[in-house]
């Protein structure tokens, strides 16, 4: 085939480089597939600009003529299948080990080019597609070219197999998906739906829905979310928007989104494919009001780099903390300008961006130590709101209706950011409907899709909650508005107009529960109890005790982490639980006794002569009257360990109760007075009971008493 030749075209002499079919195959292969795309979704997206880009220095028209000419040169114009030579080349290439560029690529690229031209300029239909395809190949006639349906779809499935099955995604993961409505041209359409820039925007879409890398999400739910996101702040081109609206492409679009989501690494990319980090606006009020720009340093970004802003200003940023470059060294005028117009900083394959908005919610950001801009107000959390002064009335009116009382204006906002108003202490805990677009960021949303929020989650497993602490279900108004019901297990309820459904109010049993809102499915479980009478980490905080001036005392006024978890060798206190460790410092304390109410008098007797205490039932404290339960006893705290309790009932004989079976001591208790010793002994000798408790022991005490008195 021709390697290169010169032609003249039109009015002026124009030099066009013609490349062979094989050269086109190699250029396409290098552009779209290769080790640099390993593990990432790849799309053979070809439009006029991409074709021109493949031949440096050429204008689009010339480059397309070159590609068309190369493909046309491989057609069998007189046979029953125009594409037989390409198919034969492909089979040979496959038989010989699939080395180098696939001979199918120029033909397939041309089919995508036809699809992008159709999508851009005509309605999507087979007729329109084949018209474009024929125009590109300078084929006369109408409708499907001979052999197209036999060869081209098969070559697409082969390309998919080559990427995914033969090379295991090492040169990229296929996004080729058929379409039931367009059996022959669907594959080409699947590659034409998204420009490369649109694909990069999908990373923003995934972040917008708070998708976590590796998180499973149904294709249908992704599609519903995409349809909500795309028309708003997506920045995707109009062709994508048209297709998003069409049911004809629903499955295909959903499949593409699912593939992209599955392989998303959590990072953002800008339109040019650069790794993208965020710039936040941060506010600090002390000692002076100050607004700052704070740059993220996402994983993979250089620790130090010089970024260039629009207008050529260079800014060198150094990583200040994990995940952050920190404050960008610019003056306040620059910050206010960025607040109004946005800011993008670029450095090689990396970029940092702040997207301007007229209403910016700020939330506490402990990473950076500022009240920093956040994408969306979260229900129940405190926020500040920075608003363009022209919108401050709308914001104030909105807060009046939906925010909890307590919010107000920060008086020195003009110093902070001229032309802006700062609302402070804003807490919103409802999901207002019909919020104007410019206030959408201060309409609380947990996520952009139905989400479980709050509740009493348990650590045991994700999405497991304590029974009666079921979470709320938040359903954004923008999500699948056609879905008017919520299915919870087998129960169907009307979708709440407030956007919030309190599942804890539904009387659900402790079990696994399945929820469906339109295409969105959620699942969570509840348990009555984890089954432990005491959870594992209970008591992990407390107070260590040490000897201080002859007594034991807590070493601090505030608790701290206890060493060794359940190691009780150290003296410590957690809550009301004392672990004495190796020390017996409470040994001399005597436990309290509960005595029955209603007697005239009580006598406690210890094991040593002199351990005698006579007492009466105390007056009942007034505050006890309010407590539940009637108590038939009262409590005493004796100074010695009582062995015997004698109850002198008013209308019955005295009752002797043995508290502890302990033999008597011969010697009087230390510091016991002679009177007490005498009372102790006389009590044993004078008290009689019809059926004494432990008569042998009682007799022994009587013998010691006699001895003491003697």
């Amino acid at each position, binding site marked *: 085939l021709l390697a290169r030749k010169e032609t003249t075209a039109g009015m002026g002499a124009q030099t066009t480089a013609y490349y062979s079919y094989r050269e086109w195959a190699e250029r396409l292969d290098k552009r779209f597939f290769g080790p640099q795309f390993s593990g990432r979704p790849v799309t053979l997206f070809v439009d006029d600009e991409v074709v021109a880009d493949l031949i440096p220095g050429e204008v689009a028209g010339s480059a397309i003529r070159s590609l068309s000419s190369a493909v046309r040169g491989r057609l069998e114009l007189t046979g029953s299948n125009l594409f037989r030579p390409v198919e034969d080349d492909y089979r040979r290439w496959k038989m010989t080990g699939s080395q180098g560029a696939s001979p199918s690529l120029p033909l397939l690229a041309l089919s995508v080019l036809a699809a992008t031209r159709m999508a851009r300029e005509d309605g999507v239909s087979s007729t329109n597609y084949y018209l474009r395809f024929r125009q590109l190949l300078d084929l006369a006639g109408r409708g499907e070219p001979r052999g197209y349906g036999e060869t081209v779809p098969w070559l697409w499935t082969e390309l998919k197999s080559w990427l995914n099955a033969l090379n295991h995604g090492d040169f990229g993961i296929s996004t080729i998906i058929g379409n039931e409505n367009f059996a022959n041209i669907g594959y080409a359409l699947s590659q034409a739906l998204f420009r490369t820039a649109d694909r990069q925007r999908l990373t923003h879409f995934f972040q917008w829905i708070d998708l976590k890398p590796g998180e499973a999400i149904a294709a249908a739910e992704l599609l519903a979310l995409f349809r909500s996101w795309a028309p708003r702040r997506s920045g995707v081109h109009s062709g994508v928007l048209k297709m998003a609206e069409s049911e004809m492409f629903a499955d295909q679009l959903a499949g593409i989104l699912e593939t992209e989501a599955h392989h998303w690494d959590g990072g953002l990319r800008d339109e040019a494919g650069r790794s993208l980090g965020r710039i936040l606006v941060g506010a600090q009020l002390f000692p002076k009001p100050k607004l700052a720009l704070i740059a993220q340093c996402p994983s993979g970004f250089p620790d130090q780099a010089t970024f260039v802003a629009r207008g050529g200003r260079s800014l060198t940023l150094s990583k200040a903390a994990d995940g952050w470059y920190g404050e960008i060294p610019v003056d306040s005028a620059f910050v206010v300008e960025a607040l109004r117009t946005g800011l993008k900083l670029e450095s090689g394959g990396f970029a940092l961006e702040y997207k301007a908005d007229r209403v910016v919610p700020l939330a506490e950001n402990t990473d950076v130590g500022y009240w920093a801009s956040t994408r969306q107000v979260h229900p129940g959390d*405190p926020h500040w709101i920075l608003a363009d002064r022209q919108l401050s009335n709308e914001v104030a009116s909105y807060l009046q209706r939906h925010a909890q009382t307590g919010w107000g204006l920060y008086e020195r906002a003009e110093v902070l950011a001229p032309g802006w108003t700062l609302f402070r202490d804003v807490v919103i805990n409802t999901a207002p409907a019909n919020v104007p677009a410019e206030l959408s960021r201060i309409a609380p949303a947990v996520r952009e899709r139905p989400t479980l929020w709050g509740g009493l989650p348990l650590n045991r497993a994700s999405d497991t909650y304590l029974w009666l602490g079921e979470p709320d279900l938040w359903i954004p108004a923008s999500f699948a508005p056609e879905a008017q019901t919520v299915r919870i297990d087998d129960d169907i309820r009307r979708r709440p107009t407030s956007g919030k459904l309190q599942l804890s109010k539904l009387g659900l049993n402790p079990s696994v529960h399945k929820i469906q809102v339109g295409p969105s499915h959620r699942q969570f479980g509840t348990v009555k109890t984890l*089954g432990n009478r005491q959870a594992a980490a209970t008591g992990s905080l407390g107070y260590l005790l040490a000897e201080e001036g002859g007594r034991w005392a807590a070493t601090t006024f505030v608790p701290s982490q206890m060493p060794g978890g359940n190691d009780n060798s150290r003296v410590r206190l957690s809550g009301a639980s004392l672990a004495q460790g190796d020390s017996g410092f409470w040994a001399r304390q005597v436990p309290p006794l509960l005595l029955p109410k209603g007697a005239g008098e009580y006598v406690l007797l210890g094991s040593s002569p002199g351990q005698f205490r006579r007492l009466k039932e105390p007056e009942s404290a007034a505050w006890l009257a309010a407590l539940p339960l009637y108590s038939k006893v009262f409590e005493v705290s004796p100074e010695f360990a009582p062995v015997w309790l004698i109850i002198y009932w008013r209308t019955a004989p005295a009752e002797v109760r043995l508290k502890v079976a302990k033999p008597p001591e011969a010697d009087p208790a230390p510091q016991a007075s002679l009177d007490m010793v005498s009372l102790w002994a006389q009590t044993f000798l004078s008290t009689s009971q019809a059926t004494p408790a432990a008569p042998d022991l009682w007799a022994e005490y009587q013998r010691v008493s006699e001895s003491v008195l003697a």
Partner: protein
Amino acid sequence: VNYDLLLEWVSEQGSGSLLSFRQAHDWLLTSEEGNDHAITANRTAATMAVLAHMEIDWVRSRWSAAPPVLTILPFAGGRSLLTGARTRALVYALDEETAETATMSVMWAPYSQRRGPSAIYLVSESETDIEQLAARLGIRYEFSVADRLSRLLPSLTTNAKTSPGGPLARGFQVDKLQIDTFEWITVESVETPGLYRYNLYGRPDFRYLDLGGRSIAADLATGTYLELSRTGRKVLAFREDAVNGTLIVPMGAPLPTLHARAAALCSGLAPTFDPDTRSMQYQNVPPSIAERIASSLNQTPLLRDPLQRLLSEPIRASRSSQPRRVGR
């Protein structure tokens, strides 16, 4: 707020971050209509710590449930109290062990409180019933908890020496406590002795500067009593009742957690707020325990006559003495 449900969750979890506690608390707060939104998670956590249900490390923003304990209250008509963690498994077991089919000598009932989980009281015929019940439940039986805690209270001055202040946060508003009014005023520098507050997000950080210019890390309560001690002011009062008495603590000088716990576990109830005297009142406190609390905080002798305390109290102890966020 359904404090009982919150305690059940705390107990089942065992430990966690203060953020998780705040989320659980605030979700409960907003789940019911008519809840008082002035209730903060921090205040609830502090109350639950005072009632010995949990311990809180404010500096590291962590909490842990405290072990469940059965104890007999002092001079409370022979009532016992179940304090600490209260998992549902434990409460189910308590139900079983005290069912009529199991025993006739122990009964229990909850008593609800406005600002904390219900107190669970038990009545029994003998102290050994409670001890044996604790053993069957697999939890600790501690006798005279309030008395014991009051004997373990750390000394204010000794403790201060062991808590040097770390580096101070920058970029935040700094306030100084006016000890005569318990009000905070914003200051430009940290030079004179006293208690300073740095308004970090959600949780203020406190530093006490002593006469020697030494910075001491302190919580609000400890710092306040250090300053009261330095200035020689006595603010704790005790009113004798027919049985035991009431410990009266000004709102502006809340007791440190351990001290408050020793007082609260005399009744098993959180202190009540008296709007007339703007004070917190702990019921059923034996004089000996009140004296030990006061002694630990250099507040002896206790003011015995409430009127005397009122006269010594600042005229304007107002809401503005509450911690606040920057800009609030």
